[in-house]
């Protein structure tokens, strides 16, 4: 069971959350201007690292809000969570503020 620190509600059990895929995949301002390859890149292509991964979660059975999370996909350790629109914390500097 993951204990996920929601930026709004604090640490809550995994079953209250739904996963929502890789974070910071920006939707183009004008999708119709994209080529098929660029549109497929936005829709389908993902980084899928083994290690630290910036991802979105939604606190479905809590505050209902989306937020971002940096989690290690091998160890499941959550390094940080932060609100949508905030810049990712600089983890290299050791700023593991929210465990």
């Amino acid at each position, binding site marked *: *069971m*993951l204990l996920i620190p929601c930026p709004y509600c604090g640490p809550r059990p*995994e*079953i209250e959350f*739904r*996963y929502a*895929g*890789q974070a910071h995949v920006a939707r183009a301002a004008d999708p119709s201007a994209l080529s*098929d*390859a660029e*549109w*497929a*890149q936005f*829709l*389908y*292509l*993902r*980084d*899928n*690292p*083994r290690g630290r*991964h910036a*991802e979105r979660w939604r606190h479905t059975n809590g505050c209902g809000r989306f937020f971002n999370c940096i*989690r290690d*996909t*091998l*160890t*499941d350790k959550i390094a940080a969570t932060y609100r949508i629109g905030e810049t990712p914390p600089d983890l290299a500097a050791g700023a593991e503020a929210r465990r």
Partner: protein
Amino acid sequence: MVLPSSHSRAGAVADLRYSILSLVAQSFRGNTAWRPVWREPEPKPAYDVVIVGGGGHGLSTAYYLAKEHGIGSIAVVEKSWIGSGNVGRNTTVIRSNYLDHANIPFYEWSLKLWEGLEQDINYNAMVSQRGVLMLYHSDAQRDALARRGNAMRLNGVDAELLDRDAVRRLVPILDFDNARFPIHGGLLQPRGGTVRHDAVAWGYARAADSRGVDIIQNCEVTGITVENGRAVAVETTRGKLHARKIGLACAGNSSRVAALAGLRLPIESHVLQAYVSEGIKPLVPNVITFGAGHFYISQSDKGGLIFGGDIDGYNSYAQRGSTPMIEDVMEGGVSLIPTLSRLRMLRSWGGIMDMSMDGSPIIDKTPIEGLYLNAGWCIGGFKATPAAGWCFAHTIARDAPHELNAAFRLDRFAAGHLIDERGAGAQPNLQ
């Protein structure tokens, strides 16, 4: 430790054919004359084809490359031991009860290869065609399964729509009068069943080795050398292997290995758990899938009940799962077969799935010359093992896909030709 040299063993391997006579002869010698059934060769500097990944798909690809296409110089490189990944972590089910026109012929070819596999590779893989039964719990589900059964029959696949009484005669242990999800009937594929999964890896390894394939274990690929748009070599922890063609068959880690060649894939890696109970007397005669939740179950010849359900639902490379999914699967199981609540769960494990964005696989060339991809098997790669290897071998040898895997294209995501069997959209965690 005294081991026979690989040269002497190579001859012994080619000569030894399993039969009743060989078993009797060995038993008279106290079973002391058995030899390792594949060599452990040192990697050579160059091969015609190098397959990355020594699981079921990689080994069957190498076997069919040698057998069907006469390619003489093949290596399979595996980062750990062969069969340490998903071929040893699945629930051993084989079936071809699909709906999509791109999928039915492919999986039916796989089932036909399963039916002849043991004779073909002279290895007991315990192929057991005990039937796969998909249950329905409402009129709408019955109509959907009738449609599926008709699609299967139109493609020459066996399918029988059973009513409630027929299912009750087959599996009396189910909870037919469940207040929320009463069982109204099921769609049975009698030719579906189970296979001993480890034996699939070992059998293909032995058969490939006897045709001269070098199986190189403990050999992790650390780089793919691309020169002028062409893949020419793999760099490994045991040296650099040049190759005219390189095939990737490393589902679970496809994104990582493809990234070594600069490719980005429409895949997320997720963990899927499976479970086995303590061994009991025969209870479940075939493979049964619950129509009201994601749960399926069969019973091994040892007596353990083997069952599984959904993926955990977030990117993971950890080959172990989280507890909420264990609870979810157990709830599904007890809803279907209430007496399961009296059993102990013996163990659970996790495998890493290549979850593709449309729920269907990829067997194709890549934008890089000489680099081929077999990936995206989601939660159903085991049943595809023979046909995936057969089609991937064809794609590599002929430099073009076979008709059976022509729809499993890598570029279908940009072209819009998705294979919408699951209807889940680009949401791997919902598949």
